[in-house]
């Protein structure tokens, strides 16, 4: 069966915790990173994101579509992060200074987050080291030698992992290209 967002939403609604694993794997780092940009506290950002996925599980039956699920993820993490800021301001007697950078990010509309999520989905099936090698070579256009040095492995390992990654992805991306075309027609 083709594995895509809708598949994992169905599974989630059937009460399968494995489906939650998919959503956590794709979105946890993205949402955590977003929260951290606003509240500038890694540990607390991680807590907020964990709470978010617990809520996702509890509300799993309430989503009528993928867009509703994604909307929930983004809206909730933004609200939770802003609440932390407000709470801090309440606890200080005078205004807190936080960098311009933070307030700009709350207005960025999640374009970057969703673009990154899409890419993460298509390389999701790759094991961690293979993923890193793939990102370094395909996205950052690093040479095999540069990659070997960055990751502290041999050039031969890099070549093997690249070829394995491409085999896996070639099979997946053919399906995904079809799926993505189909999904935005919905």
């Amino acid at each position: 069966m083709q594995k895509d967002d809708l598949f994992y939403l169905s599974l989630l609604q059937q009460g399968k915790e494995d489906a939650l694993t998919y959503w956590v794997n794709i979105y946890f780092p993205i949402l955590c990173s977003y929260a951290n940009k606003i509240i500038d506290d890694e540990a607390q950002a991680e807590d907020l994101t964990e709470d978010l996925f617990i809520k996702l599980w509890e509300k799993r039956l309430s989503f009528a579509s993928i867009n509703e699920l994604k909307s929930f993820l983004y809206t909730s993490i933004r609200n939770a992060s802003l609440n932390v800021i407000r709470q801090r301001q309440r606890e200080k007697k005078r205004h807190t200074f936080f960098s311009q950078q933070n307030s700009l990010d709350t207005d960025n509309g999640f374009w970057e987050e969703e673009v990154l999520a899409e890419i993460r989905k298509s390389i999701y099936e790759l094991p961690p080291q293979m993923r890193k090698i793939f990102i370094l070579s395909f996205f950052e256009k690093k040479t095999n030698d540069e990659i070997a040095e960055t990751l502290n492995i041999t050039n031969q390992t890099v070549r093997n992992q690249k070829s394995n990654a491409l085999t896996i992805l070639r099979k997946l991306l053919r399906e995904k290209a079809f799926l993505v075309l189909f999904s935005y027609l919905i």
Partner: protein
Amino acid sequence: MKNLKIEDVVRIAALLRKYREQTIDDTELEELNEWKISNPNQFEQLTSLNYLGTKLLDLEDISVEQHLLNIHRRIDNPAKSWRYSKWGWTAAAAVLLLVVSIGGLYLFQTSKSRNHDIKENLSRSHKIDKVRLTLPNGTQVDIEDFKNGDTLTRGDVQIVNNNGIISYIDAHSKQAIAGDNIVATPTGKQFQVTLPDQTKVWLNGTSSIKYPARFAGKERLVEITGEAYFEVAKNKILPFVVLANNQKVEVLGTHFNINSYANQAAIKTTLLEGSVKVTSLALKNTTAILTPGQQAQLSNGRNIQILDNVNMNEIMAWKNEMFIFSSAPLTDILQTISNWYDVDIHYEAQIPDRYTLRVPNSTPLPILLNFLEKSGGVHFKIQNKTIIVNH
């Protein structure tokens, strides 16, 4: 606060990808250019492989594993609220100290809630997440991805998939192992099993079949829970017998479906082809012989009822991954939904109306309930794991 329209975000993300892959057409490019005008920085960044690569690598630095474990642990144990953070289990430790200092009464209360947790955990452990095979010696194996020709080793046992027939050999003596096996499905997952005599069995979700590694004796005997469809291999000598709750079904060679879910009022056996004899084990002398197109209904303490010309499309819909109901009582529909989505149904009103439904079983629950509501006369509310039914 800016209004977030997720449809737009998803749309733009798709356009950006097409742009990067150079598969974007003129209309789409126009659309993307409009967005580019109000978001020039983002356009540059999100079409730059280099920029994306850096961001993707940064994300790889966030380790998800521990958090995944925490999340699953918190879901399975809602009474506790342990938090792992950079400072370790400090929050939890503080709670523990508090408990001890308040005294005996409080300790007694917490130990009561701990017992409740244990009971909940036990019942939860009987629910499975993957298709599971239990061997005669008790070993359990996940066989969902077990393909033809694969071999698995578990301790002293080698499990082999030979054209769908699963057999076990003692790894040392290479002898076949006798005894009963159980294949069980989790909620919402179908699975096909081939029995040692080539009989094919399709299990619906939350169902199981117990069968011997080898058929011997004077009959081929299996036992099921839940729902299963059989295509029994012809054997003139050994009759095929299925036990389900208080019912026994005997056949020689034939196609039939048995629905014996616990939440149904009756065990329903429907014959597609061939001939079956249904026997009630509770009322020893009660038997019925079915012809194709008939359904036997067996409820506690009553005689077997036979229905003629039942709707095969509806009964076998599950095997085609659909929900099909034609003017069916709402209770029937909700029973099926309850089994598939693993939800409880709570009726705040009696709804006597009948409903027609034809959707794939992968339909998100709110959409399915919406269809029913549109037909009129019923209103649903979803609360965690429960559907509340009202006028």
